[in-house]
């Protein structure tokens, strides 16, 4: 199928339209599972009809009309036992009678409201974070279950089950496919941003397995962040998140050596940082700050990433500013991981003893007990403080906790480097 140029064209058109199609159909049928099926049905109709008659002028409207026709047929065949279904069928029938121009106008969703509504539904807090991520990748990103499974190093059955559970949870909670407004928007936006960042991080810092970076997930998260920033340009935290992922993604090429080996920030070849993405990130950060969002958790993290992005050489890094930003982030978004990074920043700005003092305050935290970066940071402070034997032990402890092989190798090399 993939070799046939017409089929490839149809599939490319479908990929462009799919999310909007599902969004519109979900709003219509109030059933995301059904919406996905109907969209798929429309693709099959297109694959049958377009090779002979050519791709229509407005393929999106055509696919939507085909899907609606299937929806009506389906409802009729179900004998219309419930009154509600009969109403929907009537509504659909009326819409079906519209002229081509009217259908086009109905699909014309210049504000992207339907797509945004679908994103908010897929990221609804009634669903667990991992299921939200899988559902968003499936519905909005158009990834196949197989692709999602590969990305999350899971198996297809587990991902399929996760997506099914998520859809059921949405249906059970009666989630609307609308963009929330006002206070509800403020309450639900964090769960959308969280999912985009979770997807990005899963790609950026693979938490398990042999590969350190999985760029397709990063690209998908970047695309989602760009879509959100396009559709919600007045939300400072959306711009903060966009800034954060653009700047972090700018380092993807420099972050892994040719063998997939981890290269830490200060050792990276900065000539390989993507300056276009850095500019896009800095621009988004400026817009977030201009909207009064400088203290948002994502904007603060973007500001941190920007400090590194602005430094031409590692030794030009403004560590005092980074330490100050971490102090602020620790107040806005208190977490043991932020405290650990804060300790690292203080060690760079004010010396290894400052770092050791801060890291010792959080060493007993239960959340960090199995967290490799904690002993790794401690090892680094100890080595710089002239205590190589203790540093070696700390690096070895970190290696034992490392989540992927690359990181483990890196930490063992650092331990070996402490020998003399």
């Amino acid at each position, binding site marked *: 199928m993939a070799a046939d140029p017409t089929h490839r064209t149809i599939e*490319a058109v479908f990929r*462009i339209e799919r999310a909007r199609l599902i969004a519109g159909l979900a709003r219509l049928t109030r059933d995301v599972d059904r919406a996905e099926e109907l969209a798929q049905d429309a693709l099959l109709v297109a694959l049958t009809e377009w090779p002979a008659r050519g791709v229509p002028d407005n393929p999106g409207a055509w696919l939507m009309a085909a899907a609606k026709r299937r929806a009506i047929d389906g409802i009729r065949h179900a004998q219309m036992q419930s009154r509600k279904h009969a109403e929907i069928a009537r509504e659909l029938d009326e819409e079906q009678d519209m002229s081509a121009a009217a259908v086009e106008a109905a699909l014309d969703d210049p504000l992207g409201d339907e797509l945004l509504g679908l994103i908010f539904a897929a990221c609804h807090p009634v669903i667990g974070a991992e299921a939200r991520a899988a559902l968003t990748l499936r519905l909005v990103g158009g990834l196949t279950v197989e692709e999602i499974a590969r990305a999350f190093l899971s198996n297809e059955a587990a991902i399929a089950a996760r997506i099914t559970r998520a859809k059921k949870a949405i249906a059970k909670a009666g989630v609307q496919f609308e963009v929330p407004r006002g206070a509800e928007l403020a309450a639900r936006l964090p769960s959308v941003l969280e999912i985009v960042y979770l997807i990005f991080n899963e790609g950026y810092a693979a938490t398990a397995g042999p590969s350190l970076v999985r*760029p397709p997930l990063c690209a998908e998260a970047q695309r989602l962040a760009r879509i959100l920033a396009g559709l919600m340009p007045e939300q400072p935290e959306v711009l903060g998140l966009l800034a954060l992922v653009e700047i972090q993604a700018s380092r993807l090429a420099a972050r892994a050596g040719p063998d997939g080996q981890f290269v830490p920030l200060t050792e990276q070849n900065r000539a390989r940082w993507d300056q276009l993405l850095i500019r896009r990130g800095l621009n988004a950060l400026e817009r977030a700050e201009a909207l009064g969002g400088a203290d948002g958790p994502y904007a603060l993290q973007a500001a941190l990433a920007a400090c590194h992005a602005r430094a031409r050489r590692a030794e030009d890094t403004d560590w005092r500013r980074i330490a100050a930003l971490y102090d602020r982030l620790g107040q806005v978004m208190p977490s043991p991981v932020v405290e650990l990074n804060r300790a690292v920043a203080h060690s760079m700005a004010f010396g290894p003893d400052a770092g050791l003092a801060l890291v010792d305050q959080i060493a007993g935290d239960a959340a960090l007990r199995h967290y490799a970066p904690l002993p790794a940071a401690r090892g680094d402070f100890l080595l710089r403080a002239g205590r190589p034997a203790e540093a070696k032990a700390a690096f070895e402890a970190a290696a034992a906790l490392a989540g992927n092989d690359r990181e483990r190798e890196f930490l063992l090399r650092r331990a*070996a480097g402490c020998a003399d």
Partner: protein
Amino acid sequence: MRVMVFVKATEDSEQGMTASPELDQMFVDMGKFNEELVNAGVLVAGDGLKPSSFGKRVAFDGPSRTVIDGPFAETRELVAGYWLWEVKDMDEAVEWVKRCPNPMFGPSEIEIRPLYEMEDFADIIPDEAAAIHDGVGEKLAKG
């Protein structure tokens, strides 16, 4: 993948822009198209270029560098504008280009060229990459 999308120049575009209702309409249509690209997460960068009469070329031959002032003759080969897009594959890029309003008043052409990606280089310069890698590894062991 990233693609560079070139809007090729025409006799018209080489004359520069003069205000007209048609031009206004084109800006409106192009604005809508750009917004669609942004909302789909496709648009990374893009701009229009002034006519080649504003341009310069530098010709290389061994150690010599010769500066040539525009305008340049072979109009069909000139570029009048570009986008940088992030798409899944070339098929998707082609479909997006088909949706673009005609960027010129007469017949015109848009060319799509995929960028080299990280993995393309891995095959082309394995030795050099390995050398850089070794240097980094040495530094890490010391640090």
